[in-house]
């Protein structure tokens, strides 16, 4: 069954093989190869790779709604950030008495704000399982309610894009407020450990990387399965001719709602994997620029291919890391240029280029 899924998906197989290779090689190169060897992989690099993989999951999530369902969400960063906050809240609770103020019950920022008790919405986050449930539930629920309202009243196209952008913008403003109880401007940080493992330790970083890689593989396979099912074809049909599908008897808004919600959950998972690796989550993750940058990863990689989106995320972020290290002021020029070039010259992204050259040969 799984094999059948990849009969016609050569690129996907390549990607999964690559992931398997990374899972095998990275722990060895980091933990077993001595630091002085040229084959050694620094913990910094491992974390960086892990970060890219989280972005790849996020990109696949967006590709599912945009590439296949035609819903351009400019607010997917919000779901990513919400998943990240859910994980961050668990990590905050794990700090316990080791905070600056040494309060066993309250995180530092609440002590600073002179709060007396933990707010109700922080209850339960000392359990890992509860945090995991919230990682999926909070973004999923928000997407469900938002999508229910939007799709039912047939908000489409740019209107939808703009209100998703307004959504993430409103959330950003809200999370900046100290009164919200999510650490305001500074967000959540100074994490100590996850399930008892020290977050600064190299082995924990490698483990997080492996978990990210496995998650990426699972997300890819499940998205591929959805896309190849009759549901996937119905979704593409809705993207291409919404009215036709509706008059054939499809309740178009349920399909969009389902895909949108599922995609938001995936984005939340990506955020939850991201936060322990970078060690911080703050309201700037909600800023509209992040969400729209994510769109460009998918556009560059090639939307409607899943693997293209993942590749685009890694590629653009690698470019961003390299550029900002050497010529920080050039990065925005380059990113802006990428937006223009990819829409004008590469409407199907690098994946399209790849496919075309294959077709030609």
């Amino acid at each position: 069954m799984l094999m059948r899924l990849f009969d016609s998906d050569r690129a996907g197989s390549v990607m999964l093989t690559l992931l398997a290779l990374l899972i095998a090689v990275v722990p060895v190169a980091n933990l077993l190869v001595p630091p002085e060897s040229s084959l050694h992989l620094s913990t910094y690099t491992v974390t960086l790779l892990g970060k890219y993989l989280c972005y790849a999951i996020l990109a696949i999530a967006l590709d599912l709604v945009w590439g296949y369902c035609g819903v351009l969400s400019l607010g997917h960063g919000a779901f990513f950030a919400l998943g990240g906050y859910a994980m961050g809240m668990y990590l905050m609770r794990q700090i316990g008495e080791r905070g600056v103020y040494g309060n066993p019950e309250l995180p530092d920022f609440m002590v600073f704000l002179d709060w007396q008790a933990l707010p109700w919405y922080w209850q339960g986050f000392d359990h890992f399982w509860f945090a995991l449930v919230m990682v999926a539930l909070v973004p999923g629920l928000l997407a469900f309610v938002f999508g229910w309202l939007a799709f039912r009243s047939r908000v489409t196209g740019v209107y939808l894009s703009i209100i998703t952008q307004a959504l993430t913008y409103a959330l950003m403003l809200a999370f900046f407020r100290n009164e919200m109880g999510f650490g305001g401007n500074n967000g959540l940080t100074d994490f100590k450990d996850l399930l008892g493992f020290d977050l600064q330790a190299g082995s924990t970083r490698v483990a997080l990387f492996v978990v990210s890689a496995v998650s990426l593989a699972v997300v890819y396979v499940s998205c591929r399965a959805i896309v190849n099912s009759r549901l996937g074809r119905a979704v593409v049909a809705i993207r291409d001719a919404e009215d036709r599908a509706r008059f054939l008897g499809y309740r178009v808004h349920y399909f969009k709602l389902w895909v949108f919600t599922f995609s938001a959950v995936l984005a939340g998972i990506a955020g939850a994997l991201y936060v322990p690796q970078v060690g911080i989550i703050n309201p700037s993750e909600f800023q509209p620029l992040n969400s729209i940058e994510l769109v460009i990863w998918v556009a560059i990689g090639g939307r409607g291919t899943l693997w293209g989106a993942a590749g685009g995320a890694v590629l653009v972020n690698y470019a961003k890391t390299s550029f900002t290290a050497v010529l920080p002021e050039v990065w925005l020029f380059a990113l802006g240029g990428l937006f223009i070039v990819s829409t004008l010259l590469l409407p199907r992204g690098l994946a399209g280029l790849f496919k075309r050259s294959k077709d030609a040969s």
Partner: protein
Amino acid sequence: MDYRPVIVMRMFTLLVLVSLWVAVPVSAADDPDVSFASVLAPLNTRDFEAKSRAIAAISELKHERAGIVLQALLDGSLSSAKSTKRIVLVREIETGYEVEDAVTAAPLGMLKRTELKRVSVNNKLRRQLRELIAHRALGANDPVARRKAVEAMTDALDATGRALLIKLRSTESDDDVLHAVDIALAIADLESSSTEERNDAIDTLHGSLNPLARGRLAALVAADDTADDTRRAAASALTAIEQRVAFFEFLQVIFFGLSLGSVLVLAAIGLAITFGVMGVINMAHGELIMLGAYTTYVVQLLMPQHIDWSLLVAVPAAFMVAALVGIAIERGVIRFLYGRPLETLLATFGVSLVLQQAVRSIFSPLNRSVSTPSWMSGSIEINSVLSLTYNRLTIIIFTLVVFAALMAVLRYSRLGLEVRAVAQNRAMARAVGVRGSWVDAMTFGLGAGVAGVAGVALSQLTNVGPNLGQAYIVDSFMVVVFGGVGNLWGTLIAGMGLGVANKFLEPSAGAVMAKIVVLVFIIVFIQKRPRGMFPQRGRAVEN
């Protein structure tokens, strides 16, 4: 029956005062400058009693410089030169202290800090000075100055001041001044021992917006020893005051709301053209606004001597700069993407990043300061609650002018006709000889130019920096979509409405929460009515 002696006392005081008024000029008649200088001399001592007498004497002189000297004494800019013991006026400038003679205003050149000794005053003297300055101002020619003087005296009106006010009332012709005098006397009468006077005073203060009146009446209501009917009258007067205050505060909020709304409308109206008329999503719209603001900055750099006139130059300059950049964007990027709105959105977002970074590289990532012309500072004070600041008023008027001009262009000009034709039916417009691509470029240029003009206005309100545009893009889209795409009137009403709503929410929810509430409201609203408040209807729109 104890008020008679009071009146007798007052009449006596009045008599003394009037006689002084008449007597003083006679004694100094021979040479005003000499007598002024001699009166000034005691200020050089450390004896505050002597100073107090000197101050009283100065105020009694009819010398033209007396007011200036008293004010300088209050401000602490009156000193004595150590070498000559002469009393001088000191003005601090960049290179040192510029000195002039207190009596003759003759310039005495520059002196060092150490060569001067400031004439010190204590709080008692300050009070005396303030009062005297106010008394003198009562005789000013300008009715506004007279009214201000009356208001300054209101707080602690003593018998002397009272007598002066009563005298003023008999000669005054200006209604505002008379009203101020009545209020001031009434406030003083609240403490009168006569019930009748008190009740009359309460009647006078009924609904007055004077903050003192409100406080004193409240105190009267709260006091234990107030008679019941007085308390009732005072309470009713207080209620009337509170109602009027609430009413004017309401007007004030509306005014603030309209000025915020004007900013929203200005920012959104260019977008309403490019998005509404052409169906193009221009994410670089915010950056075009930013370019307008930077143009203002550059114009002011080029004409530092004429800041007051700089905005008149900046408006057309900003329009041209933004319009040219807009046309370049349209020709270079957007025209390849017509009919693909999502791609247009992404490409123009790329343009916005490039423009932002360009500004960062050329100017600096830091905010630039743009000066406000002098004619835009200050305000019209309708009363103590409601005052309309000139800069907000200017923005509102400016917005309406821009809006009217835009409507006129779209309705009456050849370009407007062609724009509407292309917007309704591109193929048909082309068939009757409208050059579609030229109209597209011009429309886009027009929308962009208006964004630039909005930038000029915004430069007067917020910091001019590379992120200026980003802050307005989401708001602008909300306004356009809320008002109904393709409907400029909708944009105007939506912008003003959202501005006012925001300002009404702010006191109870805080500025950020107000913004969030408004955003959430719009998100829900669009889902209920996807085509905005004033939708275009018909089958053609559906398809």
